[in-house]
């Protein structure tokens, strides 16, 4: 579904990413970890078509990415909700901007799915951080994207909410698999969710290692089998930081 071929991106003198080769399958969940500043957000912006690569090619669904695509959705660290819109209107925003027609039924279903039924008319500031991020998740699902790009979506949340949301995301991905690129700083989160984990090394950002996670699903945080993968990843990240 996503194909990066010898992708590099520089910002002036800064080599943010270099020589990135990566294929992400149609139903594959790929997590990206790496230390701060190694180009993870840049990678997502490139796939999203918000930035052009300095060299190399990026394909989504077999087409070269030259601008944002409507079947690719983006989710950020902050909920990035529009404070003047109700929860429902926020979820409907992509459908409205993309001209997709009436998606209200689907929006209600999605809000139901993340446990926000009954909150449709509320304004974002009336919700907790976790609830806001759930709304943001619904918004990134409303356009039925084939590709979801998530930039540390749970890292601003407290540990409990974070666990809940990553388990919800796992459930959503099991029920309706998509191509997902999920940037995170949390090794445990990566191991819980990902089919493959890309470890980036910094300056310039390169793929240091790709780890396959073949454990059966659904997985649960704290499962002993996950710990083993986590430990080897910690080792890999140690190499990268050293």
């Amino acid at each position, binding site marked *: 579904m996503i194909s990066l071929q010898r992708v590099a991106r520089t910002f002036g003198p800064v080599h943010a990413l270099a020589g990135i080769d990566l294929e992400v399958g149609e139903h594959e969940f790929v997590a990206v970890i790496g230390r701060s500043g190694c180009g993870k957000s840049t990678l997502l912006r490139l796939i999203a078509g*918000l930035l052009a690569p300095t060299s190399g090619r990026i394909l989504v669904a077999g087409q070269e990415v030259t601008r*944002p695509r409507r079947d690719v*959705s983006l989710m950020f660290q902050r909920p990035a909700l529009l404070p*003047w819109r109700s929860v429902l209107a926020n979820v409907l925003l992509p459908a409205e901007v993309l001209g997709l027609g009436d998606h209200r039924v689907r929006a209600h279903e999605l809000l139901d799915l993340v446990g926000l039924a009954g909150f449709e008319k509320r304004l974002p500031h009336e919700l907790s951080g976790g609830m806001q991020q759930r709304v943001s998740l619904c918004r990134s699902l409303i356009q039925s994207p084939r590709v979801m790009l998530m930039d540390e979506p749970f890292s601003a949340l407290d540990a409990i909410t974070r666990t809940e949301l990553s388990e919800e995301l796992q459930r959503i991905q099991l029920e309706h698999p998509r191509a997902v690129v999920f940037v995170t700083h949390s090794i445990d989160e990566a191991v819980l969710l990902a089919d493959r984990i890309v470890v980036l090394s910094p300056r310039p950002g390169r793929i240091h290692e790709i780890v396959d996670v073949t454990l059966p699903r659904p997985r649960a945080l704290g499962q002993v089998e996950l710990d083993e993968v986590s430990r080897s990843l910690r080792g890999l990240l140690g190499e990268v930081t050293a």
Partner: protein
Amino acid sequence: MRIALPVLGMLVIVGLWWLATIVFGIEPFLVPSPADVVASFLELPGYLLEQTLITLWEAVSGFGLSVAIGVPLALLIVGSQVLERMFYPLLVALNAVPKVAIAPIVVVWFGFGISSKVLMVVLVCIFPIVVSTASGMKSTPRDLVELFRSLDASRTHEFFKLRLWHALPQIFVGLKLAVTLAVIGAVIGEFVGARAGLGYVISTSGASADTSLAFAAMALLAIISVALFYGLTFAERKLLPWAEEHRDF
């Protein structure tokens, strides 16, 4: 409490003022006591209310005109770098000119009637409105802009579904500043050349040393300003219930 405290503050100040006029035996033509001021309002209540309405109307119509011109102007400036480079310095220069200095010219051009006052109001009001709108339109958080870009939103969508909405609380800051300036602008116009309005009352009563009348007119001006300011604050609360964090002014 929200109403009681300001009222109490007013009463304290008026009380001290009264006390001072009695204790120091100040002549009424220098500083009239609150009772003198009320008395001189009661001598001519109809006349003074009529002048109040005239000044209010000048301020409100000039303010309305400023919003009608200023907001679209700011949108144009934000929308086009060329326009911004062309006109923004000019606007800053216009604002730097002391309005009191322009007032006589404005009166020469537009006469003693209402139009010269309205123009004065526009001249003082438009700058804060343009600046607050333009800076509000430019302060949209990066992730919201990226969200719209990632949806391949048109510029029109980005402007009217995102930037303008996001700018509204900041626009209101400019409006509240402008509305109090509007009253000042109207009075400047009336000072320089008019046959009516509270500014005219003040300048003529100064000439005849009727200080109490001047004070009564000034009190009415203060009441107009406060009413306009809080009217806007109220409108903002009703219209922008979501804009909590900006509401400290």
